[in-house]
């Protein structure tokens, strides 16, 4: 609990910003859904067959898993706010359409007849008689959609639209329950508050509601327009995947670039999403640079049929394939390898003179391992280690976080890990060298389009300063400072650059 309060206080500003983004995305999505669904429902109520088709259609749309929908939209709408709003609109259509349709068609025919017999025109009948009668049902449809939107909008963070989902994703990534709770509770509270807001709107006069919504639209629209126009200025957007490590790296990129060219406007988009989101964003010029791993390039981006053995060869092949297939420029990688590792306590390693995984053969009888299910299951994980290094030891499957606690408490003495985990530093663990190259190579390097590289030669040379820099120890330390000591990625990045004379103070 004190943890939760502390996290909340630390991130108040970020929370306000996320709330704002969340609210803006939700508002536009809801407004657009209303503007589409209600007129369509009004139009089709005289054609029950068409209405049935539309009901089915919107129903089908709603069954598409939100993640899949966001993914499907990327080729057409790219990433960021626009596809997020499109996806949310798709989900919001059904309840509003259905309720409007039902509300209008369930009006007693005799009331319609009375209106006709009074000589009302169609539009007068609609606005004076039908819509007011259907309004409670329509409003409840809007409310359903609104709750749906605010909940689903947390996924918008996955495609870089920001919002409260950022907190949840970050929380999951950093195994920080407080962050997850803050994101989730805020979303729930937002839904309740907005629901109450709709209740108030319902009690207001129709004209005042229109004026109020109109004002919000004008203010919101001009703000969005202003932001869009100001973004037209020459600007370099650097994005990073989820987590502390990419955020530290992109801060370094920014510092390096602006050190050479202070006039360049660099914007960072940390925690921007997963590999495929970032890569499509890069291709569609929504972002300009992001750090990518050599292993991931071959595996996910170019789908290479071969995997060379040495790190240098892997990088060369990835660079070549990216250039050919996607006209990308892939700058030189840093030193550290972010891959699987086998770790023991530093004291344990010293006592038994352990440097490599092979050295474990001498202490086989003493080993008690705790490993993640995934590592135990993967073909290139534990099984390959046992075969290639001819070792065998008892293993318990464990949750990733529990592993670290368990080795710290001496319940086990060997674990699997990612070679850059901050916990390695936190619990004073040593990663044993993979001298037989069992684990794949994942070296980070800046990725950008060739166009961008040509236009910004200075930025390229600045970024290349990182080539061959940053050891695994150093990145563990930096991850530790961000994840555990809660220092800002920007200050950690700057500190490293200054210390290693890559930029001046």
């Amino acid at each position, binding site marked *: 609990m004190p943890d939760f309060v502390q996290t909340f206080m630390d991130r108040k500003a970020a929370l306000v910003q996320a709330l704002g983004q969340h609210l803006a995305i939700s508002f536009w999505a809801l407004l657009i859904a209303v503007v589409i669904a209600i007129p369509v429902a009004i139009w089709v109520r005289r054609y029950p067959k068409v209405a049935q088709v539309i009901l089915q259609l919107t129903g089908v749309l709603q069954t598409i898993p939100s993640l899949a929908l966001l993914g499907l939209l990327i080729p057409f709408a790219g990433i960021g706010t626009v596809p997020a709003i499109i996806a949310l609109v798709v989900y919001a259509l059904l309840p509003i359409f259905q309720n409007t349709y039902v509300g209008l068609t369930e009006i007693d025919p*005799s009331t319609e007849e009375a209106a*006709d*017999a009074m000589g009302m*025109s169609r539009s007068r009948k609609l606005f*004076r*008689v039908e819509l007011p*009668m259907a309004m409670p049902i329509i409003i409840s449809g809007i409310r359903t959609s609104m709750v749906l939107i605010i909940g689903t909008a947390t996924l918008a963070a996955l495609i870089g639209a920001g919002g409260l989902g950022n907190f949840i994703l970050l929380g999951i990534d950093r195994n920080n329950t407080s962050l997850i709770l803050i994101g989730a509770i805020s979303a729930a509270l937002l839904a309740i508050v907005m629901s109450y807001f709709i209740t108030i709107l319902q009690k207001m006069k129709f004209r005042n509601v229109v004026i109020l919504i109109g004002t919000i639209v004008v203010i919101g629209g001009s703000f969005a327009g202003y932001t869009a126009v100001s973004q037209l200025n020459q600007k370099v957007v650097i994005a990073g995947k989820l987590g502390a490590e990419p955020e530290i790296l992109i801060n370094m990129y920014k510092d390096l670039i602006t050190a050479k060219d202070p006039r360049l406007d660099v914007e960072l988009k940390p925690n921007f999403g997963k590999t495929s989101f970032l890569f499509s964003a890069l291709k569609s010029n929504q972002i300009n640079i992001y750090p990518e791993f050599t292993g991931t390039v071959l595996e996910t981006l170019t789908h290479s049929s071969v995997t060379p053995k040495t790190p240098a060869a892997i990088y060369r092949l990835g660079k070549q394939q990216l250039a050919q297939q996607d006209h990308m420029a892939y700058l030189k990688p840093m030193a550290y390898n972010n891959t699987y590792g086998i770790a023991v306590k530093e004291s344990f390693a010293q006592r038994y003179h352990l440097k490599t995984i092979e050295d474990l053969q001498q202490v086989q009888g003493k080993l008690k391992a705790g490993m993640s299910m995934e590592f135990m299951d993967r073909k290139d994980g534990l099984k390959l280690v046992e075969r290639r290094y001819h070792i065998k030891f008892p293993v318990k499957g464990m949750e990733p976080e529990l592993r670290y606690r368990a080795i710290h408490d001496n319940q086990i003495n060997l674990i699997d890990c990612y070679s850059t985990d901050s916990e390695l530093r936190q619990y004073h663990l040593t990663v044993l060298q993979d001298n037989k190259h069992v684990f794949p190579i994942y070296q980070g390097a800046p990725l950008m389009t060739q166009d961008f590289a040509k236009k910004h030669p200075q930025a390229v040379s600045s970024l290349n300063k990182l080539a061959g820099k940053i050891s695994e120890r150093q990145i563990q330390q930096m991850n530790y400072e961000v994840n555990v000591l809660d220092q800002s990625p920007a200050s950690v990045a700057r500190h490293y650059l200054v210390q290693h004379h890559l930029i001046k103070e």
Partner: protein
Amino acid sequence: MVEPLIEFKNVFKKFDGKPVIKDLNLRIMPGELFVLVGSSGSGKTTTLKMINRLLEKSSGTITVAGRPVDDYSLTDLRWKIGYVLQQIALFPTMTVAKNVSVVPDMQHVASRQVHAMVDNLLTEVGLDKGFRNRMPGELSGGQQQRVGIIRALAGKPPIILMDEPFSALDPLARESLQKLILKLHTKYQNTIVFVTHDMDEALKLGDRIGIMKNGRLLQVDTPKDITNNPANKFVADFFSHNRYSDLNKILVNQVIEAGFMVARRSDDQARSAPSIEQMSNLKEVLRLLASAPLVRIIDGSGKTVGYFDNESIIRFLSTI
């Protein structure tokens, strides 16, 4: 010669190819309270709704004030014709006052004028100003239909169509509303076309009555002529079946029409006789005669019409 206000000439109406109105010819004169009566499926409501074009005829001509209804714009036609529904169908989201002023508001009548008119009309039908801001859902069925009636009157239309307006109401409310209709009709001198399946109601209200069966008009006549000279056996049966089946439903008027009223007298007994209105029913008469030898019959304005005594009523009852 006076021109008819509403005229049907060789009107046919088909639903899905099936004829429901067959060669209808009818002239309704200005100021008339014309009742269309018949059992369900006789085509009476269809006939009514073709006048304000809620239903379109299949062939033939219908004129209103000498002009074919198709020549009017729908709005013009319907503003000339008030409409009262069986389902009442007040607009549930509007207050009583808003409901009544629907048509004047569309006609851009000044709001002060509308306000005063609504108040007048409410008083006219026995609802006070306190009802202005009530919602229809808060009113009883009878009160709702009073509002329904003045909603139809508010545009000052020369014609009012009433589609079984009282059949959903309880007998008490029905009776008082029937009186109200007669009163308003006398006052505004408008032309009313009134549809009902209730023969007693037809006899009570109609200046003339049109009897319909299977889409044809069997007989059009005054209540008296219809009772005395039914055009055919169906009409006769329709009456005898409906008539006198219930003492509550036999009206003083009908007893007078059947010729059982005692002429004016001016003795002491006559002066102390309890009075009863023409629209009251026979049961009421019997209750009064239980304690007095003579009952005085008065019309709407309180004028004495004649008397019933024990003997006249017993003779009437013996004819049933």
